[in-house]
C-alpha cells in the first residue's frame, strides 16, 4: 500500500461563479444572465465521495460540468492535481499539455443513459474509444481482452461488445456508461444523477456497482442528486446547494443528525415518509418555489421562503462559515 497517495487532492475550486448569458433581439445582444453558480468552494481528495444535493435549477449539474471542464467558470479559480501532487491551474480553457492527463483522471457518468451513448457505435466501440484516443494498448488482442474484462466487471456479458445501445435496458445502458467511464482508470468520476432515469428496482443495483468499483479502484466520486437518501448513502461529505449557493456543508451523518439551515430542514421534511400510519407531508410548512436564477433575490437566496426570516436576511448574503459543519445562515452568526 502506498500511504502517501491517500491524502492527495484532485480538485480544488475557489469562488467559482458561472453566469450564462441570455441573448435576445435581432443582434442577439446580451440581455441578462442566468446566474447558475455564485461563489462555490469545493475540494475533492483521493478516494472520497462528495455529495451535492439540491433541487432542479440550483446549479448542481453546472458545478459537475465545470469540474469536468465541459464549461469554463466565469470567475474563480480551479486547480487540478496530478498523481504526483503537481498543481495545474485549469480556471481557463484547458491547455493542450495537460488535456490528456486531465481527461484520464476525471470522467463522468450522465443522468440519462438513453442519451449519453452514441446510438451508432457498438458497445465495444464505445468502450474502446477512450483507449484509442489515449493510445493505451498497442495490440488489438490486449485491447479486446481489457474491454471484455471491463464489461464483466460491471455485470454484463463480454458477448455484448458487438451489440448497439438500443438493444439494452436502461440499467444495462448505465452499466455500459460506467464501463466507459472506467476504461482509463480515472481518479475521480462525476456522477450526475446516475440512477434517476432508471426503474426503482434497478437503481440499487447500479449504486452497488458504483460502490464496488470505488473500493476496487480507489476512485473519488462527486455525486450529484436531488435524492437525499441516495446522497446520504454514498457520500462522506455533503454540500447542499440552493440557487447557485452552497448553503450547508457537513459530513453525511452530521448533516442528517443535525441539519441546521432552514432549507436543509425543509428538504428533509419534504421527503415522503414511506409510512402510511405516520404521514408527514401535511406538516411541511414551506411555500413557494425556488426563484429564478435570472433574478435571484438580494441577500440570502432562501429568504423569500424562509420561515425564520429576519430583517438582515434580505439585505446581506450570509457567508458559508464553520469548520467541519459549514453553514450560510444569519441565524447562526
Amino acid at each position, binding site marked *: 500500500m502506498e500511504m502517501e497517495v491517500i491524502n492527495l487532492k484532485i480538485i480544488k475550486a475557489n469562488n467559482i461563479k458561472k453566469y450564462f448569458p441570455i441573448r435576445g433581439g435581432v443582434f442577439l445582444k446580451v440581455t441578462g444572465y442566468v446566474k447558475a453558480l455564485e461563489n462555490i468552494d469545493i475540494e475533492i481528495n483521493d478516494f472520497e465521495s462528495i455529495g451535492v444535493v439540491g433541487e432542479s435549477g440550483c446549479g448542481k449539474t453546472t458545478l459537475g460540468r465545470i469540474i469536468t471542464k465541459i464549461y469554463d467558470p466565469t470567475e474563480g479559480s480551479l486547480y487540478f492535481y496530478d498523481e504526483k501532487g503537481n498543481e495545474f491551474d485549469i480556471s481557463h480553457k484547458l491547455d493542450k499539455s495537460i488535456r490528456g492527463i486531465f481527461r484520464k483522471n476525471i470522467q463522468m457518468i450522465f443522468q440519462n443513459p438513453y442519451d449519453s451513448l452514441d446510438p451508432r457505435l457498438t458497445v465495444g466501440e464505445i468502450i474502446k474509444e477512450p483507449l484509442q484516443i489515449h493510445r493505451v494498448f498497442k495490440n488489438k488482442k490486449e485491447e479486446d481482452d481489457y474491454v471484455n474484462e471491463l464489461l464483466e466487471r460491471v455485470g454484463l456479458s463480454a458477448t455484448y461488445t458487438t451489440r448497439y445501445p438500443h438493444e439494452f435496458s436502461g440499467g444495462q445502458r448505465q452499466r455500459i456508461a460506467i464501463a466507459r467511464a472506467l476504461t482509463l482508470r480515472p481518479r475521480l468520476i462525476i456522477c450526475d444523477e446516475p440512477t434517476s432515469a432508471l426503474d426503482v*428496482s*434497478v437503481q*440499487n443495483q447500479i449504486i452497488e456497482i458504483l460502490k464496488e468499483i470505488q473500493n476496487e479502484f480507489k476512485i473519488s466520486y462527486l455525486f450529484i442528486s436531488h435524492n437525499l437518501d441516495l446522497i*446520504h448513502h454514498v457520500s462522506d461529505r455533503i454540500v447542499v446547494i440552493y440557487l447557485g449557493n452552497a448553503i450547508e456543508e457537513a459530513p453525511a451523518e452530521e448533516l442528517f443528525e443535525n441539519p441546521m439551515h432552514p432549507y436543509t430542514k*425543509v428538504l428533509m421534511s*419534504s421527503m415522503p415518509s*414511506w409510512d402510511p400510519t405516520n404521514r*408527514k407531508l401535511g406538516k411541511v410548512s414551506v411555500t413557494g*418555489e*425556488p426563484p429564478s436564477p435570472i433574478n435571484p433575490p438580494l441577500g440570502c437566496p432562501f429568504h423569500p421562503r424562509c420561515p425564520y426570516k429576519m430583517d438582515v436576511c434580505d439585505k446581506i448574503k450570509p457567508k458559508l462559515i464553520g469548520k467541519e459543519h459549514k453553514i450560510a445562515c444569519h441565524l447562526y452568526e
Partner: protein
Amino acid sequence: MKNIENILEVNNLKIYFKTFEGISKAVDNISFVLKEKETLGLVGESGCGKTVTNLAIMKLLNPKSTILSGKILYDKKNILEIEEEEFKKVRGKEIGMIFQEPMSSFDPLYTIGEQMHEVCKTHLKLTKSESRYKSIDMMRRVGIPEPEKRYDQYPHEMSGGMLQRTMIALNLLTNPKILIADEPTTALDVTVQAQVLNLMKSIQDEFGNSIIFITHDLGVISEIADRVHVMYAGKIVEKGTTEEIFNKPLHPYTQGLMESKIRREYKSKTLPFIPGTVPSPQNFPKGCRFNPRCNFVKDICKEEEPKENELGNEHLVSCWLYGNGGNQLENN
C-alpha cells in the same frame, strides 16, 4: 346512509397492441374497482401497464392498433363500447386527467386563460367573462398567487409547480367525479411535490372526487393513497389498503420494492435489490411474470399463472406462495 359505492369498475381488462414483433400484451386481464371519494394508488415500474390502463379509461387509445377486451363500467355503461361522440361529454367533464409533465401538456400557443375557457365553453357552456371569473377563482383556490395575471400568461411564463397547480385547477372547473393523476409530481422538485400532494388531498376533502394516482414512487403513494394496487408486467400482483401493503407486503415483488428504499441504516452496508430487469411487453416470461427475478421461485411459477388469493381484509395477492398453490413457505 347508503354504502360506499364503486364509482368505476374494471373487469378482466386486456389491452394488447399490434406491433411489428407481434402482439404486445401491455395489460393482461386486470380487474379493480374505484370507490367513492377514495384515492387508489397504482404503483409499478415503467412498462407495467399503469398508464395504458388509464388511457383506456379515458378512451384515448388508438382503436386501430389496440385490441381491447373486458369491461370498464362507469355510470352503468361500458366505456369500451360507448360511442366516441357520447364519451366526449364524459371525458374532461366527469373524468379528468392530470398528466406527468405539466410543461408539455399545455399548448404553448395559447394562454392559460384560453385553455381554461375551452373547458368551460365545451362542458359548461360559459361565456368568456364567466369562465374568466370561474377560472381565476379556481386558480386562487389551488394556491396560485396573482391568478388575474397568470390567467393571461402563456405556459412558458410559469414554473413547473405553478403549471401543475393550473392543471389541477383546470380539471376542477368541471368538478369531475374521477380524477386520474398520472405521475403528477414526478417532474417536480421535492419541496414542490410536497405542496402539490397536500393540495390534492385538500381538494379531495373539499370536492369529494375519487382519485386514481399513478406513480412508480412508493414514498409518494405512502403519503396519499387509501388503497394500493401493485402492478408488474401487465398484471396486478397485489391489492390492499396502503397500511397493509406497507406493513405487510406479501408478493415478493412488493417486498422487493419496499426494501429498495435506501434507509439510513444501510449506510456502509450492501443495499438490497431485486436482481434482473423488468421484462419487455413482447417477451413476458411464462407462468408468473416475476418468476425470473423471484427469490422464492418454484417449479409451478414457471408454468402456470398464479391466481388471486384473498388473505385477510381486502388484501389480495397473485402468487403461488399463498393460498392453495403454496404450502406457506418460510417467509411467513
